[in-house]
Every structure is written in C-alpha cells, then in structure tokens.
C-alpha cells in the first residue's frame, strides 16, 4: 500500500517495529546502522547460541522487510552523507535523544528548511520538549510512568511489567499512524512535518480511560493479581493456565451455565453449584466465603485438566475460555495456522529456517506482510547510496574514512 515511500530508519529497539510495519506495508525502508552493526540492537539471544551480531534473534525478528546500510553518525563525514540521504527519503524515523539533531547542526527547523517535504518521526521516552524530555527510560521505566505497571501484579509484591517490551509495541503502530497522517497532510500541502511520539503517552491508552474513570476514586484502585475487581480471571490448569472470567454481567450467564453443565457431566459439580441461579449472578455481590467456594469448585475442575482439553471442551460448549499460550503454543494455535499467520524464512548462511509472524492484517488491494529477511550489516550499502545519488568514488571515500 505504501509502494514508492522511502523511509530512513535510524531507530533503536524502541522503533524497530515501527519501521517493520512500514516495510510490511510496502514502503522501501532502509535501516541505518553504525559501522560494524548496531551493537545494542543486535543483542542476545543469538541463533543457536552462537554469539554473532548477524545471528541476533531480536534483530532478525524486528527488522524484516527492510534494507540495511551502515553510516557513522558520530563523524562529520557521516553526518554530511546523512544529510544527502535525507534528500532521498520521504520519512526519517529516529529515536535520537531530544536535542541530538540540533547538536549536529540540523535540528528540525533546519531539516524542514532543507527538505520541506520530509516527514520526521521521532520516538522518545517522553517527547521532544517538556520537563521530562531529557529523562532516560527504556521499557520498564516507561511502563511505570505510563500507569500500566501500577495496576499489574500481585498485591503483595511490587508492580510488574510484561517480560517483553509492550511500551515499544504500543508506540510502534502509533508512530506509523502519525507518519501516515503527516503524509496525508503533505499530499495536500506539499510540506512535511515532525511527528513527536512520546512512549509514555502512547502507554496511557492501555488504561482505556482509567485516569478519567478512577483518577479521583478514594481509596485509589490497586493491582490485584489474576483478578479483575474481586474475581479471578486466570486459573491454574493441569499444565499451565487458562483465562476465564466470572464477571461480565448478563453476557456471561450462558457461559457460566454451560460450564456448570459440563462439570455436571463429569461429576464435578456439587449440588449447591448445580442449583445456582445464574440469571442474576453478580460476582461483586458475593461475600468472600461464597466467592471462595465458587472459585474452589471451578478451580478444581480446571486444575484437573490440561489447557488443550479445557479449550476444546469450551469451544464445543461456546464457553469463552482460552489457554494462556507460551510461544510454542502460539505457533501451534490452529486458528492462526489456518490463517497462515506464520511464514518460514530460510537463513542459508546460518543453516537455519525460522518461523516469523507474516502479517498484521489482510487487505483486498495489497499483500500486507513480510517481504524479506532482516538485512545483514551493510548489506545494501552500494545499492542505496547509489540510488541516493552518491558516486562510486564517493562511496569508496566514505568507506575509506571508516564512515560506512
């Protein structure tokens, strides 16, 4: 959908996914790394455990559908080459700390004057300006400052984040949205603009209006583990966990009835449970003893069965229950395989074939999805610099200076 769009991707890990989304939409995304490769971005774990920046699995996962070049932005020669590359690009995607471009002598105002059509998208922890703009943060600190961690976790332990960086996962599609909005405006005005993405601010919508709904509630709401409100929604199964909510009002009634009917079939529903009227069931109205009794009955039923058994039984009975999949179980999930969500990329020089999620949507006019493997270090230097108008001599000179 974005064929002919040229993107220069100077992002670190917090922006890798944003560039990948643009590439999967058909844009020509060129990943820019320092000479020798992006040391932070090409981090462990490595394919088959062999320490080698070309085998970094996070790099291979998040930089697909991009070409790759090297350029040393710490050197003046690299920076002047960079300014020429910007003439080639429609979009600069970067995660430079606020003020970095200004220190190099081409802050946004200068860039905008030199390249009036250029769209710049800057992803930073807190935004380009403001009291916290200079603050350092990666995923954990962003998730803390953005309000999600306070509500995640068990009440008797510290607040929690997800073990994978969800702050980046939320910011990436918003950054892309901002870029596309700026391009939409450019189509009318001919002029680019700056998209100032705050990782913290992109976290807030994970709270679904929480500050407005709960911000003045006394006492303030607290994290409550595998529960929402008073009721449990994650349950131990024989070999893992399953997700099943007791709350949900009238919409939940058929499911609760169906679950108890299932438990009756297997002889796991005591008389008091079978005689429970679900029409006016309100988990919030139960006292602690009644809730414990209910949870103990359901919990015993779940704990005695595997995730797969519970999921299959729930599907057959139209009960909204799902397995808490690990990554291998996600890869095996039948619905996802039926939609061909996973594609295998061959890495012949690494002697490996790896499954990747192939797309994030299906569109009738264009194939959305993974188009090529992540670039090797400097893999596309010649092609990209030539396309950007550099002569072979200029490229050789940059290389000789150590800027590539």
């Amino acid at each position, binding site marked *: 959908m974005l064929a002919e769009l040229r993107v220069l991707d100077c992002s670190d890990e917090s922006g890798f996914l944003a560039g990948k989304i643009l590439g999967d939409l058909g844009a020509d995304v060129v990943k820019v790394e320092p000479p020798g490769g992006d040391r932070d971005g090409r981090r462990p774990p490595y394919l088959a455990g062999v320490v080698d920046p070309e085998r970094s699995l996070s790099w291979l996962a998040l930089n697909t559908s991009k070409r790759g070049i090297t350029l040393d932005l710490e050197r003046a020669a690299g920076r002047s080459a960079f300014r020429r590359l910007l003439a080639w690009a429609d979009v600069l995607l970067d995660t430079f700390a606020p003020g970095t471009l200004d220190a190099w002598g081409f802050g946004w105002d200068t860039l905008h004057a030199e390249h009036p059509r250029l769209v710049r998208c800057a992803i930073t922890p807190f935004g380009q300006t403001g009291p916290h703009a200079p603050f350092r943060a990666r995923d954990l600190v962003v998730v803390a400052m953005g309000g999600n961690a306070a509500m995640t976790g068990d009440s008797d332990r510290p607040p929690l984040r997800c073990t994978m960086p969800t702050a980046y996962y939320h910011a990436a599609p918003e950054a892309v949205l901002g870029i596309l909005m700026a391009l939409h405006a450019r189509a009318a005005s001919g002029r680019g603009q700056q998209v100032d993405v705050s990782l913290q601010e992109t976290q807030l919508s994970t709270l679904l209006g929480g500050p407005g709904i709960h911000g003045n509630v006394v006492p303030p709401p607290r994290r409550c583990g595998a529960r929402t409100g008073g009721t449990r929604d994650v349950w131990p199964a024989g070999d893992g966990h399953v997700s099943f909510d007791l709350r949900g009002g009238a919409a939940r009634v058929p499911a609760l009835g169906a679950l108890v009917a299932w438990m009756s079939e297997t002889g796991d529903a005591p008389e008091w449970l079978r005689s429970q009227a679900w029409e006016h069931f309100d988990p919030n109205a139960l006292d602690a003893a009644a809730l414990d009794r209910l949870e103990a009955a359901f919990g015993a039923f779940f704990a005695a069965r595997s995730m797969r058994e519970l999921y299959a039984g729930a599907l057959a009975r139209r009960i909204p229950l799902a397995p808490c999949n690990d990554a*291998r179980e996600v890869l095996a999930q039948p619905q996802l395989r039926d939609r061909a969500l996973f594609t295998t990329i061959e890495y012949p020089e690494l002697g490996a074939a790896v499954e990747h999620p192939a797309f994030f949507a299906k*569109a009738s006019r264009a194939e959305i999805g993974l188009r090529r493997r992540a670039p090797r270090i400097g893999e596309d230097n010649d092609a990209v610099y030539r396309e950007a108008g550099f002569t072979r001599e200029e490229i050789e000179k940059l290389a000789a200076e150590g800027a590539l």
Partner: protein
Amino acid sequence: MGARGVYAGLHILELGAGAAGSVATRYFVEQGATVLRIESSARPDFLRMLHAKPGEPVDVDAAPIFALLNPDKWSVALDLEKPAARALALRLVDWADVVTQHFAPGAMETLGLGAEQLLARKPELIVVTSSLFGHTDPHCHDPRLGGQGAAIAGFHHLTGWPDREALGPYGTITDSLSPRYVALLIAAALLDRGRHGVGQHIDVSQIETGVYSLSEWIVRASANGEGLARAGNRQAGAAPHGIYPCAGDDAWIAISVFDDAAWQALVAAMGSPAWAQDARFVGALGREANQADIDRALAAWTRGESAYALMAKLQAAGVAAGVVQEFRHLLRDPQLAHRRHFTTLDHAALGPLPYERAGFRLSESPGGFEDSGPLLGEDNDVVLGEILGLSEDEIARLAAEGVIA
C-alpha cells in the same frame, strides 16, 4: 469540531461495540474527521452498560468509559433489525469515506451491510473489519472475549512472577494494540485511495496484531526452541532492573541499569555505600549473576526515599528511573500536562471529565477534541435531517415505527 486537523472533511461511519473500535476512530476525530456511530437503544454498546449494577436500570448515557473513548463523535440510533433502518444505514454509507465494523463475523453480512456488499455498492469505500480472530478464520464464530485474546496471543504467559501464575498486563492488551493497527490501516488505505481512487476491505484480527507485536518472542521460540516465560521485572542484559519500594504507602520506583556508566552513577547517587563496592558487582555479567543481592540492598535504600524526589535525583545523575504512577498521578504529571494530554470536556450526564489524546503530536496539525462522547442517538436530527435530508415529519414517523431507536 473545527476545520483544523489533517482529516477535516473526512467521514467515518462506525458500527460495533467495545473499546477497540472506539479507540481506532478516535485518532481521526482528534485530527478533524467526522465520526458517526450507528447505535441501538435495544442493543446498546456494552461499554455503555459497564458501570451498571446487575438488576438496576441502566442509564446508557452515564458510562464514563464510553464517553471517554468516544469524544467528538456523533451518535445516531437505528434499529438495524428493521429494513427501513438498514436502508438509512446504506445511505449513510454513501456519505462515508470509511466504514469500520467491530462485530462478530457474519453479523453485518446478514444485515446486508457486509464489507463486500458495501464495496459492491461503493468501490471507493474503505471498509475495515476487526474481530478477535479475523473474518476469514473458519473458527471465527468461537465464543471469546478480549481477555481471552490476550491469553491466546501469549501476553498472560509473559506477565507475572516466575514462581506464580500468569497474570497478563492490566487492561486488555489486544484491545489496546489492535485499534492502533486498525487506525494506521485506515490511514494507509486513505493514502492509497488518494493516489488510485479506489477503496478496499481490510480485515484485522486482534489476536494476530498481538502475535505480530510479539514477533521477537515467536522467532526466539521457533529458532532456538526457547520458551521465554514471565520473569517478574527482570531483563536479560540489565541489572539492576526492577521496581523498588519507596517511602509511603504502596509507593514504588522503576530503575533500570544497562551499562557500567549507569551503575556507577547509581552507586554515586546512593552515596557510594560499602555494599555496592562488592567485586561481584563489577561488570554487567557480575551484576546480572548477583542481582538478587543487589535488589535487596537497593530496595533497603530506596525504601527511605520519596519516590518523585528519588526519580529527579537519579535522572539528574543519568540513571533511568521512573515513579510507578497510578491513575491519580497521571492527572497531575507535568510532562503529560506539557503535552496537553488531557482535555477537560463537559458531558451532559457525567459532568466534566479528562479526555485523552493520542501519544504523538504533529508539528503543523495540532488537532484536539471539543466535545464529550455522545448520548445515545444525540445526533439523530442532524444526521437524518441535514445529512440524509429527511423532513421532521419523516423523522417523527420513523421514530414512531421504531426505526430510529
């Protein structure tokens, strides 16, 4: 809403219930688009009923979550079970540039409002459907809700303590991830339409956007057979990396140290205590191997500090640190205030509430919100009278017949 914004003049017709659909189109309202929701009094959006107590009458206009997720939108109430209402809906499709549908697959087709049916009527239309598993999935009628989507995508398995159960991040992460993809796909399809003049159907599965986001996790499992599971707050390659207690009730600070410079800065900020000079803590590998000891000693120090003062002190020293902010803190966060994240708007049933903007700002297109979320059917007269040109008598008749309802 004013004429300002990238999408001034753009018309979006929104059908469906729940947070994901509402959040997706909110981005366009913020940039000047007109978003019209077709709703129903007989079957209100469940977000309009979340605040209600079982057994009590429901005021569908008094749900804060609905109001907050739908600022500046218009609402028309049509009972799509009635053919006359479906005919009006089709005329609104003719008015629209974009139609979003957040329904169980098949529901709209039954009403003659399915994506293919709409595109046959109007080829330049952009139709985005979203659902848990996607519309082409043979299992798409399976009963599931958002929380189950996050579990299937893997976010539950990845959130929690290693010695305890899977938790999942707060909220419904597939409900917060997928609308961002729906929005960027609308924006991409609009660019495509601008160049080629044709519309298209885009189908989004909430679970798939979650799995796609977790590409690194999937690739690690596929390549190395690695079953990375929830690790509390720990992060390979960083130590200390955790959330530590501060002075006061349930006050916490997040601290992450990724390199020697940050560790030395942290040690200096602590006043270079003797424990931190331990040879085991020299170098990232040593710190990571001994992080339980670091965590204990660090927590003993942070426990005596005020969270916000400690954040300022550590940030000034060059250490990544941030207060674990609760809802109430966000309303007073100076950085969010600087970005004008919250806009207070008055709502007829709820009074003033803080409405929230997207996480990015466009330098030339500030955008914003001017009105709170709509009452159900609040814009019936404007929509049916001014957009569709119905007379007052016709509107009254359709209301009496239960078409407008």
